[in-house]
């Protein structure tokens, strides 16, 4: 028992130390968010749905956020909103092709091999292109997602994050 209590105390100490370090380096913590207001920001002012899909509504070009509340922490969500380009996972890469007739299509890359490019195009169609039929092709660098550091207030950011945290996936009923 005694060992356990001491271990717990140590853990707590360590946790305190960690938060102090965080508090020093990070800007002010966000205020408490309101998820209802976050939900309307998501569909309204933030225009998140133009790129993201939740429970079958919205665009499929950005990552589907239906379960983002269970796969990401609030801190990770905040980082995604403030600095979207900081880390782009391979499954969120965009690719641009230019066909022989000069049409340029930028879509979400689904699979790439020596001969073929497979993507979800902006019309949300599954498309496969033979590289030999393309004038040019390549990865698109940077993030499609704008930073919301200035377009959303601190309170609005907190609200959006509170809403995202409620998204826990499709629940079996």
């Amino acid at each position, binding site marked *: 028992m005694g060992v356990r209590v001491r271990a717990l105390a140590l853990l707590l100490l360590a946790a305190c130390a960690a938060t102090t370090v965080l508090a020093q380096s990070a800007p002010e913590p966000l205020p408490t968010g309101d998820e209802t207001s976050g939900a309307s920001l998501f569909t309204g002012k933030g225009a998140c749905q133009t790129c993201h899909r939740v429970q079958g509504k919205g665009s499929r070009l950005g990552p589907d956020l239906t379960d983002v509340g269970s796969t990401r922490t609030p801190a990770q969500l905040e980082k995604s909103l403030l600095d979207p380009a900081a*880390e*782009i*996972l*391979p*499954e969120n*890469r965009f690719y641009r092709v230019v066909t022989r007739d000069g049409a340029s299509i930028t879509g979400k*890359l*689904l*699979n*790439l*091999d*020596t*001969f073929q490019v*497979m993507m979800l195009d902006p019309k949300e169609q599954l498309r496969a292109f033979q590289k030999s039929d393309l004038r040019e092709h390549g*990865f698109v660098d940077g993030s499609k997602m704008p930073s919301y550091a200035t377009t959303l207030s601190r309170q609005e950011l907190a609200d959006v994050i509170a809403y995202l945290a409620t998204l826990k996936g499709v629940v079996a009923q």
Partner: protein
Amino acid sequence: MTSRRLIVLAAAWVLAAWAFGAWGPDDTLLAQLSSERILNAQKEPQNWLTYSGGYMSQRHSPLTQITTGNAKDLELKWVFQARWLDYMQSTPLVVDGIMYATQGNDVVALDATTGKIFWIYPYTPASDARSCCGRITRGLAILGDTLFLATVDAHLIAIDAKNGRPLWNRIVAQGTAGYSLTTAPLVIKDKVIVGPAGGEFGIQGFIAAYDAATGREAWRFNTVPQPGEPGHDSWGAGWTHGGGSIWVTGSYDPETNLTFWGVGNPGPDYNAESRPGDNLYTCSVVALDADTGKLKWHYQFTPADEFDWDAVQIPVLADISWKGSPRKVMLWANRNGFFYVLDRRTGEFLQATPIAKQNWNAGFDNGRPIRALDAMPSRDGVLIYPGNQGATNWFSPSFSPRTGLFYVSVWENTHHIFARADQPYKEGSNYTAGRLTTNYPGRGITAGMRAVQRPNLRKEEENFGTVRAFDPQTGKWRWEYKMSDLTDAGILTTASDVLFSGGREGYFFALDARSGSLLWKVQLGGPVQNGPMTYAVDGRQYVAVSASNSLFVFGLR
């Protein structure tokens, strides 16, 4: 007896012999697969008699029916779908129209023109046998009417090639202690040579020869020298779990009677603190007398390795002109990222050049690699190119005596951050003592050992697979054939200058061996993980390759 009765009797005898004689054992009916035939494998190009197609391990066939002109007319002739879910990494053998292939650790005899099964020898390795990388085998050896199978639970089994019945079963090592046999054995004269895998389990590696008729051990060479043996002092106390595994087939030079084998990494993989010294003969090629197993020479590619760079590649033997005079060399593209040219009679280091991006080596001092100062392993971790799976690996390269080029499947741009850690040895448990991380933004990009069937999203600067054609004279590559994903496919070349290979993307393709241009391709729906081979039956040339767990055979339309 009158002469008339004699004639009648004689006629009756002939008739009887005609009717029943075929049932008697008559060795004169069919030429046995003698060791001389294996020695002269190039004289019967319709057959494929050893893992690499001949003792020089060039994976080069004299067959010429499939050409750079007609390769576009290749079509599927048959498929053998193994009832086995792991990758098929083996190269089948073909002897006089019969193909001997594997299905997991089962052996199957197939009609080489249709893929139909003559017989199956079923073998289920003990469930408590340990192996790092799948319960797989890389193939068989044959001598006379006997096939030799090395199993994942470390048995060597002789099988009757006519009916699939076992003839003897020899326990080579203890499977539960992490010893496994995944290599195709090599037959030399009357002996069968194998060695155990288990470099991630702290085994004590060896190469051993067994009498082909009885299975009795004829000789043994310890790849981690025991006390009193030369090289033992290169270990400190760490030799007891020193690794030094064997997991691809060696080569043989009849002129010097030397057999050459590549040796795996030292254990534990990622931390040399417990094994001060060069750790002979890990990450080396050893040249052994084929009759006695005595060491004639060795060359260590990576002394005191901490990056898991097994020297487990095929020793490719070639007779080339070197600086103006004929020389008998060994060509070796190593997991550590260098292409070596060695003199195969003496082991003399002739040349080493990078095959892919590397940062660990700052040159060579009399053949000994000089470690770059900023590439020293530590507990904090150090970024090393290439990564732990190497710039190439076990998959077979090819040498074409016609083009003079050495063809290698290369992994370009791979890296790992290697960090030492503590891990005590425990029998039968993974023993690596380190941590591997990467700078990649996601797991799907990692240059990992297993070809995972999932979409490829990697960028070229992250890593890619490529076939490179090296000129041994300069050590530089003349052309390359780039893929988007990595490749574990070996390479076959033919005397009509066609090159066959594949990759994780599932394509099997033919290239012009002189220019690297694509002649033909087909999508097989799963990673190509073995070395293609070729054979002929009734004057028709076939090419066999595996993808995932199936074997595909192609021929001209």
